[in-house]
């Protein structure tokens, strides 16, 4: 029988992979393991997300990674991570029955980054190998990590926030709606208007 002090069993892959594949069991195990340092672990996870973005941006744009490209992309696009933190805090704070403190909850939340991280890497590989990629098609493929993340977030809400299954599903759906609204809003703001987004969607449907 596993005790609360027992460390997470050694594995070839990171805990984040376990969370992506079997979120309920992994979150439950992590909640039982009180010996972890959530602050350090959270910073490491945020660094992994920033690292992924800082590499994917220059690889897609110029198929080159230098120190300056890497550093400037990391600084420029870290606002995406800041938005993710703000949205996560919103979800966590609004759960009155949560079983853990904010830092621990944020650490577990960001452990669910794998679907989007893998998607970004896949898109970068596609852009680099094919040379020309339709951005509308790429955004459509984001539905896969979106659905996958919703599944992980629902498990997080059930286990870490103590939500009922239906409430957890609603929260996960609301999270995805907020994330997509922010993403599409940014797209509309910077590309000249919502009609550009609508045009892209209609082109995709055709």
């Amino acid at each position, binding site marked *: 029988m596993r005790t609360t002090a027992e460390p*997470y069993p*050694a*594995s*070839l*892959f*990171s*805990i*984040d*992979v376990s969370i992506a594949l079997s979120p309920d069991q992994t979150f439950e195990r992590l909640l039982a393991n009180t010996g972890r340092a959530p602050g350090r*672990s959270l910073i*490491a*996870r945020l660094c*992994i997300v920033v*690292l*992924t973005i800082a*590499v*994917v*941006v*220059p*690889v*897609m*744009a*110029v*198929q*080159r*990674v*230098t*120190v*300056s*490209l*890497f550093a*400037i*992309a990391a600084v*420029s*696009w870290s606002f995406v991570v800041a938005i993710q933190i703000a949205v996560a805090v919103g979800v966590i704070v609004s759960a009155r029955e949560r079983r853990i403190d904010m830092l621990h909850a944020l650490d577990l939340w960001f*452990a669910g980054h*794998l679907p989007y*991280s*893998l998607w970004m*890497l896949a898109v*970068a*590989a596609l*852009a*680099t190998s094919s*040379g*020309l*990629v339709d*951005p509308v098609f790429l955004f459509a493929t984001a539905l896969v990590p979106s659905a996958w993340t919703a599944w992980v977030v629902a498990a997080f809400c059930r286990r870490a926030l103590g939500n009922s299954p239906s409430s957890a599903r609603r929260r996960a759906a609301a999270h995805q709606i907020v994330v997509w609204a922010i993403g599409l809003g940014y*797209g509309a703001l*910077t*590309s*000249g*208007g919502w*009609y*550009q987004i609508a045009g892209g969607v209609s082109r995709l449907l055709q």
Partner: protein
Amino acid sequence: MIVRYLGTLSALCVIAGVAVGTCTTITPTRVPSRVGDYWLLAGDFHVHAFPGDGSLAPWPLRDEAARAGLDVFAVTNHNQALTAKFARQQARGSDGPLVLAGEEVTNREYHLIAVGITQKVNAFQPAARAIADIHAQGGVAIAAHPGPLSVGYTDDAIRALDGTEAAHPADDQRERNEFIAFYERARRLNRRIAAIGSSDFHAMPAPVGSCRTFLFVRERTEAGVLDAIRDGRTVALDDAGQLHGDPALVLLAKQSIPQQPVDANNGWRRLSVALVWAGVLGVVLFGGGVR
């Protein structure tokens, strides 16, 4: 044993890839050629930057433009000129390509490139009026990727244009033909209209300068570049290597255009990208310390 250190090895792989990429990235020195009384410059007047819907901030964009053999480029984000003005400001007094402030005036009826402006141009007005606003600021107005959907380009608006994108990254030959057909129509209405080649770079290939404009300029300054566009002293190069524009200038450009710079370290660049990509994948999967 090695399994224990997969995350760390992955992180080292990223560091090695970035180091290889940095050490093997060379920016060739560029000296524009002379053609009679003119300098022959290479420019890209339709480039998006961050913050905006471009992924690269102005600094790396300028480095990439230099590597692509460009002498001048314009930052033209949709319906805002802040990023462009910042890019122009920070490039002042330093070596490298000239950076011009611009905007892609964007609405349902037309997309219009404004280059050499000082203020944002209102996008919610007829094309002819937007062009007049650009001229009032001392800038030039270029029709962006004009096609059958660009219904805002009336004959009056076309007569007022300084240039039109005859070359723009296209999905197929049909699109290329549309840009050329618009250029021919514009040329019938305005003999001096400049043929422009632009990459419309955002975040993915095609890269900066993939389509470009060759300009015959009297002086290598912003004023010289804008004058060349106003006078139609340009030739557009498309992504298939074809030149478009006034036949006499096309002939002249064919004899004078320098060879595109070749990346001598292309193999190292690919290795660097492969190392970094595999390294990040490893960090994501094996944790890089988060286990």
